[in-house]
């Protein structure tokens, strides 16, 4: 029979329960976050759990060095676990964009939390050892520990992740940890040394965590997750657009203002088709211009040509180019193209920049978002292509991404007609990108597109010289149709685009 539990001892056992819940939650948060951010959930979970348990072992070992003032140390540790566990997911989200070695930070945090949690139970058992028989002690502590673990493992996927999101979950349990510390501190005030100092510290940590809890939306908008198919691992609102990256097991996707920009699974199709035809047709490609394309994928393809000397990438949004340069995971996707010494990033408005540019480019890639509103529509007008002409030589080749010729044939052929209206010779082509569907481009040159001047680099996965004639074939459902050219004063392209995509999405 178990003796009646006295209130104070019950409190300590309750804290075992809470500590166990919190400990497991931190582990789950770390595992989930790692598989969100790095993909491959099996590897992530198994290494995180392994590292965590191992760290707990270290903690347990270290517990032998705590001999005096156990209760105070216990409270001290509680506060520290609350702090580190509580801020862990917020820190991980924040450093994801900036830290080159995200994994290091991840395992450091996991290790630290593990050690602290590992210290807790042995300390507690040492505190309680004089109050219970050893048999009772072991039974009680482990009962509460395992019940706590069960609770955590059930509420985490069912309640916490969907309703709280990761940042708030870890904050919430951090606060819970600290509350335990405060309650223990108050109830055992006669036995606790430095009670005042500890309470002060605990309140400080609670304020910090409450702050993070409150501002979690600023750090990461979880409500957004519902709008996307896969978990959102990064989101950021720049003055120009909302950048969202989602991650599933195999796939990493970039969305700008909710529109898919690429899926890591098939973006090579899109970018090879964007870059290589123009590189093949241009007599020279010493100087290359990219307008838009802040993800660095087009630059990656261009850098496959050793004779390219200068790439100028003009993208409006510094947060895009920074993200794709600094995040190791994203830079892996673009083969660190944005760090290339050949490449110069200019964060400017393309239209304005073209007005001041004096350099002539051999090849230019115009990779803007689809013309879904009147502001972006201006970048598809005769005025824009005429302005672009001043940055080209007579034999330069340009390519314009031109939305889907299947979904929006009028919009697609409108880009062709607009370039034509400005005196360019054009060649429309298209390709199939599974995540986008049928996608179209218009290649153009001021004096005509003649012959292949260059061989293709080795290692392309999709594009080849003999594939190109097929890409220039348009079936009847995508065939050229009579459309107006897009001017600043009519913006017909936006209307075509809205009509056609609107119908398609109904």
């Amino acid at each position, binding site marked *: 029979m178990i003796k009646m539990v006295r209130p104070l001892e019950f409190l300590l056992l309750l804290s075992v329960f809470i500590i166990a819940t919190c400990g497991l939650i931190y582990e789950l948060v770390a595992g989930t976050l790692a598989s969100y951010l790095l993909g491959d959930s099996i590897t992530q979970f198994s290494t995180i759990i392994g590292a965590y348990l191992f760290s707990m072992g270290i903690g347990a070992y270290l517990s032998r060095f705590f001999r005096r003032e156990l209760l105070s140390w216990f409270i001290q540790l509680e506060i520290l676990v609350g702090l580190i566990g509580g801020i862990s997911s917020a820190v991980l989200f924040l450093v994801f964009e900036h830290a080159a070695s995200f994994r290091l930070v991840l395992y450091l945090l996991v290790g630290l939390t593990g050690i602290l949690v590992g210290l807790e139970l042995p300390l507690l058992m040492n505190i309680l050892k004089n109050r219970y028989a050893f048999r009772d002690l072991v039974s009680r502590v482990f009962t509460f520990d395992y019940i706590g673990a069960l609770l955590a493992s059930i509420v985490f996927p069912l309640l916490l992740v969907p309703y709280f999101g990761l940042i708030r979950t870890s904050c919430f349990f951090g606060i819970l940890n600290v509350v335990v510390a405060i309650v223990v501190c108050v109830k055992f005030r006669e036995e606790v040394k430095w009670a005042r100092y500890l309470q002060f510290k605990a309140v400080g940590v609670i304020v910090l965590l409450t702050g993070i809890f409150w501002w979690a939306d600023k750090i990461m908008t979880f409500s957004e997750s519902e709008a996307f198919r896969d978990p959102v691992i990064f989101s950021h609102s720049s*003055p*120009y657009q909302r950048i969202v990256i989602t991650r599933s097991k195999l796939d990493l996707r970039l969305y700008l203002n909710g529109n898919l920009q690429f899926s890591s699974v098939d973006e090579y199709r899109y970018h090879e088709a964007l870059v290589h035809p123009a590189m093949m047709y241009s007599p020279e490609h010493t100087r290359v211009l990219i307008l838009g394309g802040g993800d660095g994928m087009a630059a990656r393809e261009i850098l496959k040509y050793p004779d390219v000397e200068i790439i100028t990438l003009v993208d*409006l949004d510094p947060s895009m180019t920074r993200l794709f340069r600094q995040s190791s995971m994203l830079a892996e996707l673009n083969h660190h193209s944005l760090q290339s010494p050949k490449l110069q990033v200019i964060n400017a*408005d*393309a*239209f*304005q920049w073209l007005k001041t540019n004096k350099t002539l480019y051999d090849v230019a890639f115009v990779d803007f978002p689809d013309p879904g*509103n*009147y*502001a*972006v*529509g*201006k*970048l598809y*007008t*005769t*005025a*824009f292509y*005429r302005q672009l002409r001043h940055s080209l030589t007579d034999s330069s080749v340009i390519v314009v991404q031109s939305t889907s010729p299947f979904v929006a044939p009028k919009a697609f052929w409108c880009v062709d007609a607009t370039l034509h209206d400005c005196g360019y010779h054009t060649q429309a082509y298209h390709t199939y990108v599974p995540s986008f569907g049928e996608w179209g481009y218009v290649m153009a040159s001021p004096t005509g597109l003649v012959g292949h001047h260059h061989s293709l680099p080795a290692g392309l996965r999709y594009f080849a010289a003999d594939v190109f004639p097929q890409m220039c074939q348009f079936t009847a459902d995508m065939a050229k149709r009579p459309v107006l050219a897009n*001017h*600043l*004063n*009519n*913006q017909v392209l*936006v209307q075509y685009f809205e009509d056609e995509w609107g119908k398609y999405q109904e």
Partner: protein
Amino acid sequence: MNGENTRNKPLTRKDFLRYMALIAGAGVTLPQFVACEAKKDQYGHIQGRIYGASAAVGHKIREGGFAAPMHTETVDAVIIGSGVAGLSAARMLHHNGCHNYKILELEQHAGGNAGFGRNAFSAYPLGAHYLPLPNLENQPLLDLLQEAGILTGYTADCLPMYNETDLCYDPQERLFIHNRWQEGLVPQFGVGEAALAEFKRFFADMEKLRWQRGSDGLYAFDIPMARSSRDAAYLQLDNLCMKDYLQQQGYRSEELYWYLDYCCRDDFGAGIPVVSAWAGLHYFASRKGKSANADSAAVLTWPQGNGRLVQHLQQFSNNNLQTNGLAYKVTPQGREVQVDYFEVATGTTKRIVAKACIMATPQFVTQRLLPAGQYDHQFVYSPWLVANLTLDKLPESRGYPLCWDNVMYNSRSLGYVNAQQQSITQEAPEKQVLTYYLPLDHLSPADSRRYALGLSHAHWVKLITDDLETVHPGIHAQLRTIDVWVWGHGMIRPHTGFITSDAIAAARRSGYPNVFFAHSDLSGISIFEEAFYQGNNAALALLDYIRT
């Protein structure tokens, strides 16, 4: 100032309430108190001031009592007024080798109704803000546009091509009707079949009228209006108001009447019960512009409005312009004209002796300057309010997105123009700048003028913000400044019978061989094309005179 009073009182009470709330420990209810108090003075944060014509200085002409001029200057020609007519005349003198002339302008800047301003975020118009594509026969105007680089050339079939960045960008016009924005200004959304059919009939009629010619072979309606047919069949339309004309034609629908009233108020500062049918129809049937790269209804516009054209015109006379110079007496004497003026900056009077003079001034000024001049009260001027609003972000309502011209159905105002429409950047502007137009035609012109000049800035803010709140709820919180321009004599009003009146015919005739008149008043319609035409004609007549 009034605004301070209203702010001071609630402030103390708010503090008191806050104090009470704290004592009671009712921290939860505090935000409600604050919100409630803030609402009472919800426009108090909106800055800005009143601008407008220098009425006080101008009225000195009426009072007289100027000292005899001490200083005399001799030139070939003098132009009084540097609005579009005056600047056009100066350009014409310049192009014909006459450089020894002087322009007198009462205000600090040239431009008149086509003046413009600028703040940290955008240039903006102070009045006229666009130019419709000129008629192909209006060669002098086409030449002006070509000279300014706005017209880039002609196609093989003689159609002008315009600089794409000077044409109004899409989306151009929207109308707030039945609680949403629709595309275009002609009411469509939620409008009945009968009304739609009447619009169709009206526009078909106008298209017919556009190409009709009178018995003299001239177009029924043309620009410049002096080139319109003198055929009585058309001129008699001046004897009835636009509203009566519509009734005669059997139009019934409320929406059509609103639309035409809006158009008349937009062009003439007065509605269809006042404006003559001839003028009202001229608005629709006189414009026959064409272009190779824009449709006929296209307009040319710039952030600074027609200030763009003023800037071009002004470059020919920069060294000849005397601003802050109030001409108060014009005395023709044989082969000379003496023009006496008051230099506002120094407070001294000066005299210019010229061979000839162009008076590019409105009638109510012209007649006071000339000896024994009589101001004919047939010349009626519509008072106007133009306000430039700076706001953080326009809170949008349902429907079509922000356009260049944004009009509200059944509002007293004409809505607002987006000064930043002609921008090619992707970035949303740091602050938005809108130009709000309100013809003050609810009272007689004289009463409206008195009313408008008596209003405080806070009153204007309330009037404008309340109007915009109906279509953009919450706009007050976004507004930072409202600068207000009150134009007491905004533009000549072509009221019933005026265009064909003896008064206008008499005003065109100068009793002196070396005094020439140039103002859109003399056309009866205040538009850029008329002022330009009047200025050119006066300059050519003056050149004729001094060279013989």
